[in-house]
């Protein structure tokens, strides 16, 4: 278990300062695939480097299983990193790279060899053992970097955007591979990415970061279905933002009145919900298209865009604003609607999310 408590990192002593991490606290459980997600410059890599030991935080605590990590130099932390650039040693072979950590731990040669062979098999690189790292492809280098970091059996594996240099198809394969490795080894993975899809498909839990602080922590479903604030809703997936008036709150259920005058029940934020004007987030695929009569919102169909797997309907709402719906396509079936039709937009009770800000 990693406990990060109030970690702050400020760069620049004199003159202008830059706060890379602003009072970040999070607890990462054992054997968890934990993802730090956010745009570039949000501090996710800095947080990873604090855990690895390459950055000393200005204040705060980092503990692994109750042991204070900040007291230890990087080479004494039971934590290994997969670097964004892989950082494979060019003067060593694939096998020497993988065995480096164990050699530095002064393990007996026989054990180093056995573990290297195991790791080579685990990442399916056995035939490449004697190659120089410059003689293998990007995807293979990625696998060697993984094997090298896993070989010393760290308690925690840190992954700094390890898939960003790979092409689309390879990235998909490696995502599945990473998941497999994590469940086979039982090691805690802390994964840094700016790719929301990558985060949603692989993670047990995601921390969404912005400007040095964590905005929301939760499971992929939680984060996607119930974003806490506009930034999270906007950063992950597509979202419709609706102006509404909050009438009353009962636990997690909130009664709101939409701009059209219709009333419905939605999810309230965890805390701080007050009656008055609020913003509502509704995912495009959570809403349904129907007739204008009796719908929550009514409007005119402005555009229909076919995407193969699904179709997007852009609706200009009465009283301003627009709403995008997404419907999965069925074989050889047209939607039966055309641009200019009057349509209604509805979503079931409990689907919309009232945002914190």
């Amino acid at each position, binding site marked *: 278990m990693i406990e990060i408590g109030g970690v702050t990192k400020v760069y620049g002593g004199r003159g202008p300062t830059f706060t890379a991490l602003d009072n970040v606290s999070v607890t990462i459980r054992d054997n968890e695939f934990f993802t730090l997600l956010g745009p570039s410059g949000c501090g996710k890599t800095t947080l990873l480097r604090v855990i690895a030991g*390459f950055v000393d935080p200005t204040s705060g605590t980092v503990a692994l299983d109750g042991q204070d990590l900040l007291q230890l130099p990087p*080479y004494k932390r039971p934590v290994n990193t997969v670097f964004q650039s892989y*950082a494979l040693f060019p003067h060593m072979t694939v096998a020497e790279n993988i065995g480096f950590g164990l050699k530095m731990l002064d393990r007996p040669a026989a054990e180093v060899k056995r573990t290297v062979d195991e790791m080579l098999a685990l990442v399916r690189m056995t035939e490449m053992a004697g190659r120089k790292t410059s003689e293998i492809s990007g995807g293979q280098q990625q696998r060697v970097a993984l094997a090298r970091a896993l070989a010393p059996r760290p308690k925690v594996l840190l992954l700094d955007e390890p898939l960003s240099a790979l092409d689309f198809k390879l990235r998909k394969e490696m995502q599945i591979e990473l998941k497999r490795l994590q469940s086979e080894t039982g090691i805690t993975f802390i994964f840094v990415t700016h790719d929301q899809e990558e985060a949603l498909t692989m993670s047990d839990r995601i921390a969404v970061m912005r400007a040095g602080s964590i905005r929301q922590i939760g499971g992929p479903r939680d984060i996607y279905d119930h974003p806490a604030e506009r930034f999270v809703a906007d950063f992950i997936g597509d979202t419709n933002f609706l102006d509404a008036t909050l009438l009353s709150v009962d636990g997690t259920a909130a009664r709101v009145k939409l701009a059209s005058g219709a009333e419905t029940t939605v999810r309230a934020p965890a805390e701080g919900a007050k009656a008055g004007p609020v913003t509502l987030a509704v995912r495009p695929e959570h809403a349904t298209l129907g007739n204008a009569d009796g719908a929550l919102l009514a409007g005119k169909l402005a555009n229909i865009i076919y995407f193969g797997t699904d179709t997007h309907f852009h609706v200009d709402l009465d009283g301003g604003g627009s709403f995008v719906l997404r419907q999965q396509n069925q074989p050889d079936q047209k939607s039966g609607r055309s641009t200019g039709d009057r349509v209604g937009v509805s979503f079931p009770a409990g689907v919309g999310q009232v945002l914190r800000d």
Partner: protein
Amino acid sequence: MSDASDPVARRASRNRWFLLTPALVVLTLAASGPLLVVMIYSFLTPGDYGGVVWKPSIDGWFSVLFQRDFFSEELTFADAHLSIFWRSIWLSLMTTIITFVIGFPTAYFIATRPANRRDTWMLLIIIPFWTNLLIRTFAVMELIRNEGTVNSLLIALGIIDQPIQMLFTDFAVLVGMAYVFLPLMVLPIYASMERMDFSLVEAGYDLYATRWRVLKNVILPLVKPGVIAGSILVFVPSLGAYVTPRVLGGGKQLMLGNLIELQFGQGRNWPLGAALSLTLLFIVTVALLFYVRAAGKEEGHHG
């Protein structure tokens, strides 16, 4: 179609030779020519007042290693020459080691500064280069002579009563050469270090390597080409150094360069001087061969 019968290829080939002419002329006149002269002189007889007499002889080469007793005609090794050879090689090796020990951390320090400040640090390393060699050598002399800065300071501090004799010793020659040749070590090491990916150093720390082991297992192998280049750049001119051993060694601590100069000057034995020069060239060539082999291995490593 062969090249010779193709007019385009023939003209291209002629142009190539034409364009190469200046370089070839310079090489012939400035490198091969004088070398040939030295080679020929080494096989002639010395003239009475310097110069050579056109009478073939291998005495010059003979005297490099041997000497004939004036009275008994007994043949012995030329101890004086051998000790000078040995001192030259030893002092040059020591100079190389000292410049490496000082130059490597210096290069590392500069390479790890923020990019915009590295040039300033490099400038500080290069500035002494713009100063005349003789002046720099006299500056070292001023520091270490008996009434010099170091001795005066030590006496003033009460650490010693009598000045330490540093000038006109091997130590003085070493200090002088290490100071003069230091930039030649720093520059190539810095060049390799600047190209080095410092995330590899982090990877080393991350994989349980202590500072010392990161240095030994990661940094040194990666900057090895720079270290080899720097060592050659220091070792080769050290072997032939003339001004520094002359000024700081005081004519007593001769090195090869001084011995050669002696033969062309007071010694009036040009063939011996020429033969000694070629011997020096031979030692340098052997050193360079080592370099080429080491560099070739490095190439195979990365390729």
